[in-house]
């Protein structure tokens, strides 16, 4: 029973959704979108489990004073402050602190007067931008380590990377001495565009075709119950 019901649900829903792609008539026509919405609803309720797990793990770390428990404390403090400020809509009206800004709970959560919006603007945004900016450093260290001309393919990769690095900046135009600087022509930026337009595009397309076939095969295995590990169900021998 524990094994059969989830497999039966997977099979029925999978087949129905595939068939509904070809049948515009209601109720099949909008089934795909409806199921997306059902998934979003389930995922939203499931957040309670995730949030609960987060609280449990960090509270346990603090309680047992494991290494790094200070970070867990910061995590929980941040969690509760953001939750309380957001849920209660703390804000300022004429210098007074109000709950349910602007008093009738109808204020736009993105309004600058609401403290939640300040947390977004002055804490979340800079942190997100900082993490993204780390990529600049990691690209440099990864390039330094990885772009070595060990063999023919690695050399081709190295040359292509140089063309793109130069072509994506003014330097590419400046070093293309064979083309006057103010004229269009077969300069390094143009070569960089060619690399993106032809070999890169062809490679991307080939990978995407393979991925699409992989998705078809995996989806089929899941629908037919051949792959059932994700259900936490033992495989059929």
């Amino acid at each position, binding site marked *: 029973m524990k094994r059969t019901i989830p497999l039966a649900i997977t099979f029925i829903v999978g087949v129905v959704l595939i068939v509904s792609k070809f049948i515009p008539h209601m109720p099949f026509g909008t089934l795909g979108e409806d199921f997306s919405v059902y998934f979003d609803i389930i995922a939203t309720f499931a957040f309670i489990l995730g949030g609960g797990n987060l609280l449990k793990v960090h509270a346990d770390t603090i309680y047992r004073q494991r290494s790094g428990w200070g970070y867990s404390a910061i995590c929980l403090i941040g969690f509760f402050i953001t939750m309380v400020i957001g849920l209660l809509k703390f804000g300022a009206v004429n210098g007074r602190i109000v709950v349910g800004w602007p008093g009738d709970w109808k204020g736009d959560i993105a309004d600058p007067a609401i403290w939640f919006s300040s947390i977004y603007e002055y804490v979340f945004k800079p942190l997100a931008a900082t993490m993204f900016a780390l990529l600049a450093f990691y690209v*440099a260290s990864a390039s330094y380590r990885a772009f070595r001309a060990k063999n023919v393919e690695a050399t081709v990769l190295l040359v292509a990377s140089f063309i793109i690095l130069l072509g994506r900046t003014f330097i590419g135009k400046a070093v293309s001495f064979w083309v006057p600087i103010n004229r269009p022509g077969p300069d390094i930026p143009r070569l960089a565009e060619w690399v993106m337009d032809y070999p890169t595009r062809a490679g991307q397309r080939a990978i995407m075709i393979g991925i699409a076939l992989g998705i078809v095969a995996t989806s089929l295995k899941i629908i037919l119950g051949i792959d059932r590990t994700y259900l936490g169900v033992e495989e059929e021998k």
Partner: protein
Amino acid sequence: MGKIYDKIRNLDRRVVFLFIALAVIIPLLYAVRFPEFPTPMAKGVFDHIERMPEGSRVLISFDYDPASEPELEPMAIAWMRHCSIKKFKIYIMALWPLGQNMAQGAIKRVILKDFPNYKYGIDYVNIGYKSGGQGVINVILTDFEKLYPVDVTNRPLKSFPLFKEANSLKSMDLIINISAGTPGLKEWIQFGSDPAGTPIIGGSTAVQAPQLYPYHPKQILGLLGGLKAAAEYEKLLGDKYPQYSDVKLNKGRMRMGAQAIAHIVIMAFIIIGNLTFFIDRARGAKKG
């Protein structure tokens, strides 16, 4: 000499990080700028918008978040400016939750600041964010009001003259999508532009651009990939409309100086790494 060579051979990654930090900070602090030479792709996008008549209906979707704001905001601002200068009717929305904030920021920086004659509801409107990704596009393909009964100010859509003229994606003359991932340009092409027969122009991060080039030119009129393309567009805009020619008004162009220097530093490290690799290989061959 040998010690120096060993240090270079086993270069600590933190040295690389330090040089990159300096390569980005110094050009930004000292406003190092380089001339921009727009590519045919950027010119194509610019010319298409330039050719459109006054009053054209343009939908701009802000599908990015603060993480990609430094890369995508310059092109978003440039497009808002261009559309406002050309007196288009601008319909603003977002498929990412934080895209709505990005949109508000762009409206504040462009329309409210430079175009005081632009009237909300008559010349532009912001209908905000709705969850559902491609599901949203599927619905607004035929009717905005089915999913957006009100705008961000909680007023019914039907009260705006803009929605009396056009009530669906099919009524738009152009879609402009600035996207950093999913849902984004791919979804707009597949579920919006193609079924509606409405042309689309896109802006994406440089990393995403190779995946989107296959759609050009049949399914997408043009694509601005990354900060360089944004800087090229700003240059074209500044050349045509002198009020935007000052580099200080164009964040893309301001940041390109740092990008150029950073690229040179990365190339220098790659060359150093290859030199040490070849020297070691030659030494190993001698011993062997």
